[in-house]
């Protein structure tokens, strides 16, 4: 399917870290460092439209502590949602084993969740989700795209359809305002990987 309802942008956190904080700081540690990187990301996102999809690349980050995970991942996700939120959808790339725990913890603690690439070609939902949300997200992730007529077959119960709505509301899935189709975020950024 070639439809791409949003034009995603890629942001390399390691590159931002070098440019915005100090060239000497090669690790994403301490809250002020995380805050500075988050603000640089937000400034970059401010240049995009009202609704945007961003691929935040952590592949080159060696050490990510809990303070930075909170600033760079949890706060970005938190500020994108709800009334007055930035409206941005996020996919976090390069969330390998050494970073995974920190990101899971900061998201779960605040009832948040995010889509993350945890290995080559493998995407997971990290953080706080209900079983129905997790199952529905997996269906959408496996299919990549759901059209209105597919939903009843793919998500036979009411729970699944409710969960799909919540995933969109939580910015864990994207629904095209033009076609009404639901997209897995991983597919929308696949050309950037």
């Amino acid at each position, binding site marked *: 399917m070639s439809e791409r309802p949003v034009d995603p942008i890629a942001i390399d956190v390691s590159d931002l870290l070098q440019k915005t904080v100090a060239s000497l700081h090669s690790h994403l540690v301490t809250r002020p460092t995380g805050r500075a990187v988050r603000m640089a990301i937000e400034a970059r996102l401010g240049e995009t439209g009202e609704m945007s999809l961003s691929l935040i690349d952590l592949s080159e980050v060696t050490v990510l502590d809990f*303070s930075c995970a909170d600033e760079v991942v949890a706060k970005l996700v938190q500020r994108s949602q709800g009334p007055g939120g930035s409206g941005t959808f996020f996919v976090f790339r390069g969330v390998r084993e050494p970073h995974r725990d920190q990101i899971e*913890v900061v998201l779960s603690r605040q009832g948040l969740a995010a889509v993350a690439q945890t290995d080559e070609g493998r995407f997971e939902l990290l953080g706080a989700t209900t079983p129905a949300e997790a199952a529905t997200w997996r269906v959408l992730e496996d299919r990549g795209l759901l059209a209105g007529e597919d939903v009843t077959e793919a998500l036979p119960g009411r729970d699944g359809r409710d969960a799909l709505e919540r995933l969109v509301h939580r910015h864990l899935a994207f629904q095209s305002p033009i076609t009404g189709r639901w997209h897995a975020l991983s597919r929308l950024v696949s050309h950037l990987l």
Partner: protein
Amino acid sequence: MEVITIPGSLDGQSVDGFFDRVTEAPTGRALFDGRHVRWVDPNGMVGLLTGGAVAGERTGALPRLELPENPDVLGYLSRMGFFQEARSIFEFDDRVPRRSGGSSDVLLEITPVRANVDVHEVVNRVQSRSGAILASRLGYPAASVVQFSVILSEVCQNIIEHAESPGWVAAQAYNWSRRLGRWVVVISVMDLGRGFRGSLGSEHAARYGDRWSDATALEAAFLHGLTRFPDSGRGQGIQQIRRQVQRWNGAITIRSGSARIGQVPEWDDTPPLVDGLAPFPGAQISIVLPARAAGSPEGAG
């Protein structure tokens, strides 16, 4: 001069008694008698700096330090960078050995922590040298160096964010052959700030009423993750350090004011909470990570 005798073995087990002596010493200029020190670990070295700073602040005069007579101890203190930090805290004879290259089991020499840039420096240093020690001495997997760095980052930030006062950190691997029959890594982080009770008081003391004390403040932060910041993303540092230390079957204790709280495994008989110590400024954190026992799963001690 008021003489404060430094214990022959100054480490995590004897440092509370040493702090009690510092606190209870009369207010005249202090003399720290270290001539008979035979053994010192990161808790002892950082504790000695902390104790000296407290005595100096109380009396308004630099305390005098009588150096250990044992050349091995002197050499070790020198290698760990003790004298570099001690120059602004103690007056002592200038017969200290020249600082030589670090021992292969030193994960982190005594490093002052005053600002966030110091935390970056700590992480840079341990990243470059701790991997080999964690693997060869403790049998930890290669990825553990990141978790180890995260622990150090979080404990050091605790100084900057909560103490609002400078502190020090140091880490070293030892063979605890008699005590545990295994190698361990000892991490010590101490500051002279306002302590957990002072940091949390304005936000949480009222809820505790008469029960508010050093012990309840430590319980609030250590067990329940309370912090003075209203931000729901804060207060995770100590909680997550505890979790990682537990995964590695290690021990962590924090003294603040007149209490010490801890999370200790079965091999350590330290009580989980000690109250009624002599009131001592700041916070003193000790972490001991043991080598993996033969046959234990990866990531477990």
